[in-house]
């Protein structure tokens, strides 16, 4: 097989490798730093893609540190698909093992929040359940079957990721205290936002999404979290447009 593109690719991501000898300038002299244009384009464009895709992570460690670590990451984990909107799935794990940053324990989950925001942004449009669906006879209500919309993503974290996000958002917030937080990322219209879930709500939403009836999901949440507050959880689910009764769920 023709090895031209293999040699080219290997030298692109590894600046230690020699420029392939079949590359030349217009006069037939070795290409030299002309090859660096491609090396630079690849690393800069991939770094920029991550820079745009991980706003919270970038803010937490600063743009300069972020771009430096991104330049490491893109060489180790080049994209495997031309869909740059999904690039960076391996970043949370990379952050967890990247020596200079391992002391920031919450960083990987903050990167997961960035990923969830982006996935939600591009997810399929599914109409949220109308609140009037809950104004029905109790026997209808308990049998109701709902699911998460494709744009609704649950992130369970051992860290206060919602508070970290809020403190770093435009509106700002108090300095987070150490605690675990469950976060719902959802998209009422086109702009995804994180919602802090009260205890048990993540279990409740996941039970609904697994196909359990309204009553079964409630029972399940009460089992895991005796103080589960259905009214509070339902309010957040309706505000965020995270639940659908549409039968045509498409992920």
């Amino acid at each position, binding site marked *: 097989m023709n090895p031209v*593109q293999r040699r080219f690719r290997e030298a692109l991501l590894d600046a230690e490798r020699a420029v392939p000898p079949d590359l*030349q300038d217009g006069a037939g002299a070795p290409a030299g730093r*002309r*090859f660096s244009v*491609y090396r630079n384009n690849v690393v800069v464009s991939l770094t920029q893609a991550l820079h745009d895709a991980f706003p919270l992570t970038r803010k937490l460690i600063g743009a300069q540190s972020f771009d430096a670590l991104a330049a490491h990451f893109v060489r180790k984990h080049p*994209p495997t698909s*031309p869909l740059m909107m999904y690039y960076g799935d391996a970043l949370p794990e990379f952050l967890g093992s990247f020596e200079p940053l391992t002391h920031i324990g919450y960083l990987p989950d903050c990167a997961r929040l960035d990923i969830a925001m982006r996935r939600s*942004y*591009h997810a399929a449009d599914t109409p949220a359940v109308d609140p009037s669906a809950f104004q029905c006879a109790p026997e209808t209500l308990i049998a109701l079957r709902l699911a998460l919309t494709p744009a609704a993503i649950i992130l369970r974290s051992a860290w206060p990721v919602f508070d970290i996000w809020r403190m770093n958002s435009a509106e700002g917030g108090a300095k987070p205290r150490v605690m675990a937080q469950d976060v719902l990322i959802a998209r009422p219209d086109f702009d995804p936002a994180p919602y802090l879930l009260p205890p048990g709500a993540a279990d409740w939403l996941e039970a609904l999404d697994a196909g359990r009836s309204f009553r079964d999901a409630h029972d399940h949440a009460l089992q895991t979290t005796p103080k589960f507050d259905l009214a509070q959880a339902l309010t957040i689910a309706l505000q965020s447009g995270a639940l659908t009764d549409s039968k045509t769920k498409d992920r």
Partner: protein
Amino acid sequence: MLDNSRRIDRLPNNAGVGYKPQHFDDLRADPGPVKWIEIHAENYMGAGGRPLAQMRVLSERFAVSVHGVGLSIGGETPLDPDHLARLKHLVEWLNPASFSEHLAWSTHDGQFLNDLLPLPYTNETLAQVANHIDQVQTTLNRQMLLENPSSYLSFAQSTWSETGFLNELVRRTGCGLLLDVNNVFVSATNLGLSADGYIDAFPLHAVGEIHVGGHDEDTDDHGAPLLIDSHGKPVDDPVWALLDKTLAKTGLRPVLVEWDNDVPDWTTLRSEADRAAQALALVA
């Protein structure tokens, strides 16, 4: 659902711009001379959300060109069937006035490098690229346009000129061409060739669209000028002059202003489109 009945089925011979989501409101309020827009296919391959919603609105009013940047038509490995299927889905949904891609590669061994990389022009690569174009045109059931690259170097093993290579691809596959005159200017400067000579040798009868865009200036190891196709600033005067010369030969064609990095406000981009419209007015 997208209403396909009102779709414009070919690009108009007017000025267009590379569409950026931040211009959504301004473009509709004050399009100036802009009659069509171009989108990068890969940015509209999500399942839903704002990008597709914007396209539903804009495609009612503007002709749309879908411009792929990730198919790797010049690759020595087979086209990614998943990506081709996504492209087919997008093209069937949007029914754009045009689909175009690049004479370049970006994927190898399952790694996507997010850049338009060069290939040698040999009989072997000619057959590979022609096969890939056939595959795309058959899958999409439409003619595609292939864009000439910007080059920073050349391959010792090339046996075809770029214009000869493109001409032969047109002959073998029936594809059309997207002539990027900024790329012509960049490549000609970088490789010490004549831009006018390139245009003279180009199969102009096959040109379905013309691009202009901005470039940066650097130098190579020997201090010779090395232009970088950056799409991050206004179009340079020599490129506008090359557009005038090209349009004088091709006649009216759709002309697109590309500005992909450091994207300016709408007024600045629109004034570039005004200049493209003026170039077209000289031909009319």
